[in-house]
C-alpha cells in the first residue's frame, strides 16, 4: 500500500502540477454544489486539532532524522542549508475567519503532502538504507492525507466549500542530488515551523 502511495501520489501530483502549478485558482463559489462521499464525523474539529498536534509533536524529530541522514554539511549548517526560506509556500493568517483559516490550512496541507511525496521518493533513491527515515516520511504523509480529508470535509459540510485550488512546490525529480537534499531539508524546516503555528491556531 505504501509503495502504491509513494508511486501513484507523486505521479498524480506531477500531472496536477503540469496543469495548474503556480496558478492558484479561486475557491468554489458559494452556490456551487458540495457533496462528500461519507458523512463527516461530528467531532471533526477535534480530529483536525489532534492531527495537527500529532504532526507538530513529530515534526522536529522528523527534521532531525532527515538532516542527519543527509550527512555533512547539513547537520552543522542548518541555518544555511535548511532554513525555512520556501518562497512559494502558501500563506496562513491566524486571525482570519474559520473558513479562511481552513482554506489556507487546506492549501498548506496539500502543498506539504506533495512535497513530502517528492522527498520520500528522492530519499528512497538517495538513502536506500535509511528505512527509519522512509517510514517516518510515509507516516507523516499518511497523517497529512487524513488531515486534508478532514479539512475538506469541514469546509464542505459547514462552509459549503467543495473545491480549493492549491499550489505545489517545485518538482525535484529533475534536480541534482544536492538540490534534492537541500530542498527537502528546507521544506521540512518550513514544515516544522508552520505546523507549530497551525497547531496553535486551531
Amino acid at each position, binding site marked *: 500500500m505504501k509503495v502504491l502511495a509513494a508511486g501513484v501520489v507523486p505521479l498524480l501530483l506531477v500531472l496536477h502540477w503540469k496543469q495548474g502549478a503556480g496558478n492558484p485558482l479561486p475557491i468554489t463559489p458559494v452556490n456551487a454544489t458540495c457533496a462528500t462521499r461519507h458523512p463527516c464525523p461530528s467531532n471533526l474539529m477535534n480530529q483536525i486539532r489532534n492531527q495537527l498536534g500529532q504532526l507538530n509533536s513529530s515534526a522536529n524529530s522528523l527534521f532531525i532524522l532527515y538532516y542527519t*541522514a*543527509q*550527512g*555533512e*554539511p*547539513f547537520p*552543522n*549548517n542548518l541555518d*544555511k*542549508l535548511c*532554513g525555512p*526560506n520556501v518562497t512559494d509556500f502558501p500563506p496562513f493568517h491566524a486571525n482570519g475567519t474559520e473558513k479562511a483559516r481552513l482554506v489556507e490550512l487546506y492549501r498548506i496541507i496539500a502543498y506539504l503532502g506533495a512535497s513530502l511525496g517528492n522527498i520520500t521518493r528522492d530519499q528512497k*533513491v*538517495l*538513502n*536506500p*538504507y535509511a528505512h527509519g527515515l522512509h517510514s517516518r516520511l510515509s507516516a507523516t504523509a499518511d497523517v497529512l492525507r487524513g488531515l486534508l480529508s478532514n479539512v475538506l470535509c469541514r469546509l464542505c459540510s459547514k462552509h459549503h466549500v467543495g473545491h480549493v485550488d492549491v499550489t505545489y512546490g517545485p518538482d525535484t525529480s529533475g534536480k*541534482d*542530488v*544536492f538540490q534534492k*537534499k*537541500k530542498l527537502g531539508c528546507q521544506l521540512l524546516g518550513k514544515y516544522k515551523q508552520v505546523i507549530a503555528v497551525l497547531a496553535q491556531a486551531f
Partner: protein
Amino acid sequence: MALFAVLQTAFLLALLPLRTYQSEVLSEPLPLTPESLSVSINSAKQCLHLQWTVHNLDYHQELKMVFEIQISRFKASDVIWTGNYSTTVTQNQVLHWSWESELPLECAIHFVRMRTMVDDARIPVPRFWSNWSSWKKADAQNSLGDHPLYVFPKDKLVEEGSDVTICYISRNHQDNISCYLEDVLTFGKQLDQSVWAFELKNISFLRKTGTNFYCQGQGVPEGVVLFVSKVLEEPKNFSCETRDLKTLTCTWDPGDDTGLIQLPSYTLFESFSRKKTLCKHRNRCDWQVTQDSQEMYNFTLVAENYFRKRSVSILFNLIHGVHPVAPYNLFPKNVSATNATMTWKVHSIGNNSALLCQLQLLGEGKVIQQHNISIRVNGEYLLSELEPDTEYMARVRCAYADHFWKWSELISQNFTTAEAAPSEAPDVWRDVMFVSGHPTVTLFWKPLSKVHTHGKILFYNVVVENLDEASSLEVLSVPAPANSTKVTLNQSSYQIHVTAHNSVGPSPASTVAISGHPGNENVEEGRINGTEDGFPMSWKPQSRNATGYVVEWCDGPQNLPCVLQWKNLGPTTTGTVISSGAFRPGVRYNFRIYEISTKRMAHLLEKKTGYLEELAPSYNPQVVPNNLTSHSFTLSWKDYPTESQTGFIQGYYVYLKSKAGEKCHRGFEKTVLPDNSVCCKYTIDNPDQKTFVMKDLQPESVYEFFVTPYTSAGEGPMDDFRKVTTPDEYSHILIHIILPMIFCVLVIMIACYLKSQWLKDKCYPDIPDPYKSSVLSLIKSKENPHITIMNVNDCVPDAIEVVNKPEGSKIQFTGTRKSPTETKGTKPAYLDLLPTEKNYSGPGPCICFENFTYNQAASDLGYCGHFPVTSQAPHCPLGPLTSPENLLKTLEQNYMNSLGEIPAGEANLNYVSQLASPVSGDKESPPTNPPEPALCSEYKMQMAIPLGLASPPPSENSSLSSTTLLDPGEHYH
C-alpha cells in the same frame, strides 16, 4: 567483330574517368578540410562532443585521415589541449569525437577547431595539413538560470583515489564565497573573474549516499554531491558446479562492495556455445545445461561498473563438478539393544546415476562407525554392535559415484538403542563395626559405569544370607541412586549379595562375606611415601587361596567424615598404586589391605599410612615451662597431636637464647636464625618425647626458648621466643622463712583485733570514775563531809550573766561539777559572769573549768580555745555544748546542722567553748579570725570524749557516735 569493337570502346571510356581520378587523387594533394564542425556538451559525462564531415571525397572513396584538434578555454587563443584523431573516412561520413574535460564544462567557454591530413599509404608523401577550421564555441553557461551561485559538476561519479575538479560560477563578483568538502574548508584557484576551481586529489569513499561539496556566499548555499565508488575488484574463487546435471551454478567472491547505489553488473559468457547471461546476483549465476550433451564449458565472468571491467575465466567439465543435493528422510528402523537399520532417500541425478553415500554413526560426538554404500534412489544399512540404552547420531551424505568431487550436505538423525540388563556386578565393599558384640555392616557400592548399566538403574537388591542358618534370607531393596546401606547382623557368618536392577533385569551379583566375630585388627602399621602417581604399596600374601585383595582408605583428611574408597585387586597382585584426585599434600592417609578368601571373607593383611607429600608442620606446640629452679626448668608440650600433622613428626628442635656470648649448653649447638640472631639449638629426635629439661642454667638469668617440630619437609614456623627467668639461688630459703613469719604476724594481728577489748582492759584500762570509786564508799562510811573528791581550782567564776531569764530557767549550769553535797547549798546557778579587774588576766574575760574526768590528751594540746567574751558576742559556736541537754539535743538534731544555725534562743549563756579549737573545728574551713592563744583561764572538758569527736563533724555517723558517748545517764549526775 563490330560488337567487340563496341565493347572495347566502352571499356576504354570507362577507364578514362578512372585514369583521370587517379591522376587527380594519387598524384596531387587533395584540399580535404573538415566541414560542418559542430560542438555540443554532454554535462552528465562532462564531454565535448564534436561532429563534422569531410567533403570532396568521391563516391566509394575511403581514405585514412588524421584530424588535429585544438581546444581552448575561456579564450580561443588559450589552447589547453591539442591532439590527433585518426580514422578512415568515407564520402559524406559524419565523424564523431568526444573529449572529456577535467573542468566541468559549465564553468568555462570552450573553443574547438581542427584540421586534417590524409594519412593513407596510397598517397605519396609529402602530405600536407589542411587549413584550420574556424573556432567553434561551446558555452554551457547560456543554459544556466539567474541564480547568483552555481556549483559543478552535478552528481558526478568518481572512482576512489582519483582526482576531481569542482568549480563554481558566481554572478556576484563582490561576494566572498567559501567552499567546503564535508564541512572542511577547501581552497581553490580562480580561473576567471567569476569562476573558481577546486582540485580534489585522491578522493576517498565516505558513504554510499555521496560526498557533499558546497559553497557558501551571502545567499543560499549551493553544492554538489560526488558519488565515490570503490575500485571494482576482480571476482575471486570463481567456480561452477551442478547438483542435478541440469543446471550449472557458478559462484564467486565479488570482493568489497563498490559503495555505490548502482551495483556493478556481472555477465557470464560461455565461449563454446557463445552464449551469455546477465547474472541476477553479485556472487552467483545460474546456467542452464543444454540437451546437446555439452560436457566442456569455458566460462568467462565479466564484472563491470562505470569505471572498470574485470573478467575471470574457467574451463569446466560438467561431470567433474557434480555436487549432489543432500539426501533426505533419514530414519532408524527396527532399533534393538544392539542393532538399528538406517534408511534414507536421495534425489536422482541425470539418468539415475549412481551415488556413493557415506553413513556415519556417532556416539558422544565421535564417529564410531563409518560405512560407504552405493545407491541409486533409496539407501538402507544395518548398524550393529551398538550398546544398549545408548543415544547415537546417524548421519549420511552422498557424492557422485562416477567422479567424486564433493560430498553433499549432511543430514542427521538421533536414535537410542533399547535397554538391556546390567552386564556387570556392582563393585561392593563393606565396613564392619562391632556394637555390643554384634556386627553392624555398612555396605558400599560404586555406581555402574554407563557401559555396564544398559539402562537406568532403578534399585539395588541386597540379599543377606545367614550361612549358619541355611533357610535364613533377608532381602533389602535400596532405591537408586543410593550407594550404601547398613545391615545389623548377629554373631553368625553371612554372605551378602548385591545386584543392580534396571527395567530389564538384574545385574550379576556381587558377594561379600561377613564373619560374626571381629578379625585380627592388631596389625602393625607401616609407613608409605606418596609419589606423583599416588601411593605405591605392596604386601605379602598370607594364604595361597586368596581370591583377591582390597585396599581401602578414606579420601578426606582424618578430621573429616570418612568417604570410604576401595580398590579391588586380583589374586596374583601383590602391589598397586592408589591414586585419587582427592589426595592432597600434607594430609595423612591410612590404608588397610585386606585379603579376600575363597569364601569372600576379608582378612586384614596390612595397614599403611603416609602422605602424598609431607609438608613442614603448620603450627608449633604450646610449650609450658614448669619446675622452674635456679638452675633448670622443664618444657612440656604433651598435648601436641603428632598424628594430625602435615607430615610425620620426626622430632623437635629446642631453641634457647641466653646472654650474648654465652656458650651453648651441652647437647646444644649454635645456629643462626632467619633474623640473623644466634641461639642454641637442641634436637630431639624422638617424636614421642614431649618434655625437655633445661639444665645447667644460671640463677637470676633470663632465658628465651622456642620449640618447633620438624618433618622430612622441614621444621615448623618460626614463632616468638618465650622468656623464663631463673630465680635467685637463696630465694627459696627466704620464702621458707618469710612466708611463715608473715603468716604468724597476720595471725597475731587478727587475734589482737578480735581481743582488742580484752587487751584494752588488760593493757590500758579506762580511768576510773571517782564517783564510782570504792574510795567514795570509804569516805561516806567515815562520814567526813569535808572531804570531797574534786576541788575547784583557783579559777572561780566571777560572774554569770544570764541572757534570757525566762529561758534560763531551763538551763542547768553544769560548768562546775560539784558533788551533790556541795551543790545543795549553793544558790541558783543563773548568774552573770562579770569580769573583774582582779581576775582579769588576759585580753578578755575567760572561763576556766576543771574536771578530773578531763581528757588529758585534749588538755595536752596546750591551748583550749580562748576567745574574748563580749556582751555582743552573738553565739558561741559551741555554746549549746555547755549544756548537756542542749548538747544532747543538738546531737539528736542530727549534727548535719552547722553550729551557727542553732537558734539564738537556745544559746542563753555566753561563754567560750574550749572545743572550738582548730583541732575540733572544721578543718577545711578555718575561722577567719582565729583566736589568739591566751594563757588565762582553762577549761577542761568533763567528758571522756575522743579528741576527734570534740567538735561534731557534719556526718550522720559521727552524730550517732557522739550520741552514744554523750549519754547523760552515763556522764551527768
